[in-house]
């Protein structure tokens, strides 16, 4: 057997390569640069890589290739859209991460120890988050464009491992943060075991680990489908875990709450895009012909997820937890896009993911602003009267909440509308009805927060709103603009998506 040297299409892979390269530069910076220079350098490197990658994604927007990396990566319209979404979301998330206030100066120090106190006083920063972020982004970029099970699995881990770590780096409430990391890690590993087991059965079923091979096996039939079904089920467990669908959601409230808020923002928004991106690709291309087998499963899960997320969010007393449950509910809504299994569904999902991601980052950006002397204040009771104290921040947060609730003239509405209509078009009426009803439930708690902010008198307890740093302001303002613009004039974005949203197989 002759060894044929591999051919990689570096142009198409360049966005990911840029990120990985940036990450490695970051690691080197960590190793060799003086502490004082690191924060700025790291930020520049990170932003630079992200922007460069984005430019690169833009340049390859019309490319289509199944063999970008020997068949491991597929680049097509949806891939470009997902990668672009991830990059944009990451960019504005990184602006939040740049605020040193959120991260422990020294992760190795015992919480409450002298060492930690000294580290804080010394103005130390864990600048390692930047390369970690870049690694995660690279993983997320790869996840939805993978076209074989190995790459998919590796990408899953590349995006997960940095997140596990980053979840544990919170400056305040260290114990909770470490706990979040532990939970995220253990459950993540647990679910990836399921994922892998499922992959094994798919391999057994199709005798191939490439998507094309599996798809051909699904189309071609032969034998019975037991292995296929097991494979789909377990692979789905892994994917559904990442998107936070019930009953695989349990990690998300705890992790969202415990992790540093910028990390929460990043993972809530970007991970969702990546995971749903991969799901869309897999279900739309690989399993499309086995729709009969997974559609009922996903339907039930989607319904449970929306209802559960919306319902439980009502009783939450912590902003971040509430947003976590809201994100669970949104995972349910997004699943309807997967169930739809038509072009409209794909377009709608892509739009929804982007819009939701931006809004989510914006919402968490606001959370980072509300603080007292001991750091962020996430107890909703202490958000009372925020509208009085700092109306603009409250208005911004209210806008994000209204978008989550799907009120017209916000991006959330267009997203919801398009995704539900796509699902309806495919005949999945039960999901649409459940979606509509749980939207009503969901509206309840979004409105409750608005009431809290605007219609309740402030309590004087030292809660104050930080004047946002210029970076955070950029994030918030950008998110607001996108949220409103996509609600009022979504046509250009929709058109753009519509032109690109076709999977190649």
């Amino acid at each position: 057997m002759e060894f044929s040297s591999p051919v990689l299409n570096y142009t198409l892979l360049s966005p990911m390569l840029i990120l990985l390269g940036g990450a490695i530069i970051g690691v080197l910076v960590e190793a060799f640069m003086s502490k004082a220079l690191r924060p700025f350098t790291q930020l520049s490197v990170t932003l630079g890589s992200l922007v460069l990658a984005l430019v690169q994604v833009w340049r390859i927007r019309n490319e289509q290739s199944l063999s970008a990396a020997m068949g491991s990566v597929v680049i097509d319209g949806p891939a470009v859209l997902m990668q672009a979404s991830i990059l944009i979301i990451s960019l504005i998330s990184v602006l939040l991460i740049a605020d040193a206030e959120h991260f422990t100066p020294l992760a190795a120090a015992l919480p409450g120890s002298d060492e930690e106190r000294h580290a804080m006083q010394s103005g130390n920063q864990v600048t390692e988050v930047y390369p970690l972020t870049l690694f995660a982004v690279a993983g997320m970029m790869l996840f939805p464009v993978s076209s074989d099970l190995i790459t998919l699995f590796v990408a899953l881990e590349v995006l997960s491992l940095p997140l596990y770590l980053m979840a544990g780096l919170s400056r305040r409430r260290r114990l909770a943060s470490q706990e979040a990391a532990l939970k995220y890690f253990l459950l993540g590993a647990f679910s990836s075991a399921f994922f892998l087991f499922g992959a094994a059965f798919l391999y057994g079923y199709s005798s191939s680990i490439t998507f094309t091979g599996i798809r051909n096996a699904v189309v071609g039939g032969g034998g019975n489908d037991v292995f296929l079904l097991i494979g789909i089920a377990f692979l789905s467990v892994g994917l559904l875990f990442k998107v936070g669908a019930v009953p695989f959601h349990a990690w998300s409230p705890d992790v969202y709450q415990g992790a540093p808020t910028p990390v929460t923002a990043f993972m809530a928004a970007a991970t969702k895009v990546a995971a749903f991106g991969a799901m869309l690709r897999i279900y739309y291309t690989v399993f499309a012909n086995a729709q009969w087998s997974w559609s009922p499963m996903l339907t039930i899960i989607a319904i449970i997820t929306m209802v559960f997320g919306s319902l439980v969010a009502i009783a939450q007393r912590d902003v971040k937890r509430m947003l976590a449950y809201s994100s669970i509910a949104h995972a349910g809504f997004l699943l309807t896009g997967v169930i739809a299994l038509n072009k409209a569904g794909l377009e709608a999902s892509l739009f929804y993911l982007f819009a939701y991601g931006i809004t989510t980052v914006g919402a968490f950006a606001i959370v980072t602003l509300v603080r007292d002397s001991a750091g962020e204040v996430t107890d909703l009771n202490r958000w009372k009267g925020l509208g009085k104290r700092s109306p603009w921040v409250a208005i911004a947060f209210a806008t994000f909440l209204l978008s989550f609730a799907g009120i017209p003239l916000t991006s959330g509405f267009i997203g919801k509308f398009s995704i539900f209509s796509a699902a309806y078009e495919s005949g999945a009426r039960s999901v649409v009805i459940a979606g509509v009803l749980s939207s009503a439930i969901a509206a309840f708690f979004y409105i409750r927060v608005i009431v809290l902010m605007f219609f309740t008198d402030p309590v004087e307890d030292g809660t104050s709103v930080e004047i946002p740093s210029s970076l955070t302001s950029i994030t918030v303002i950008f998110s607001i603009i996108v949220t409103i613009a996509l609600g009022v004039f979504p046509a250009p974005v929709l058109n753009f998506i519509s032109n690109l949203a076709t999977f190649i197989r």
Partner: protein
Amino acid sequence: MDAANYLYLSALLFTIGAVGVVVRRNAIVVFMCVELMLNAANLAFVTFSRINGDLNGQVVAFFTMVVAACEVVVGLAIIVTIYRSRRSASVDDASLLKR
């Protein structure tokens, strides 16, 4: 010898691993059980590789081992950190975040 027997074994090991994650309290043991599940998956891959007559399955298993190794590093680092803060490796003690 029926190759399916390996699959049965794999399924059993996977199940045992999953149960271990649920019932054991020591974080390290829990994590070991996850490793057991990964191993079970690997066994399935190897078995299917043999059934299918191609080596891709073995390559996956190989990747799994690498990935698992990385996971172990990160995981154990996290566990140690927690242990240092709490002087306890029990996952039940880490339950600040709830409801």
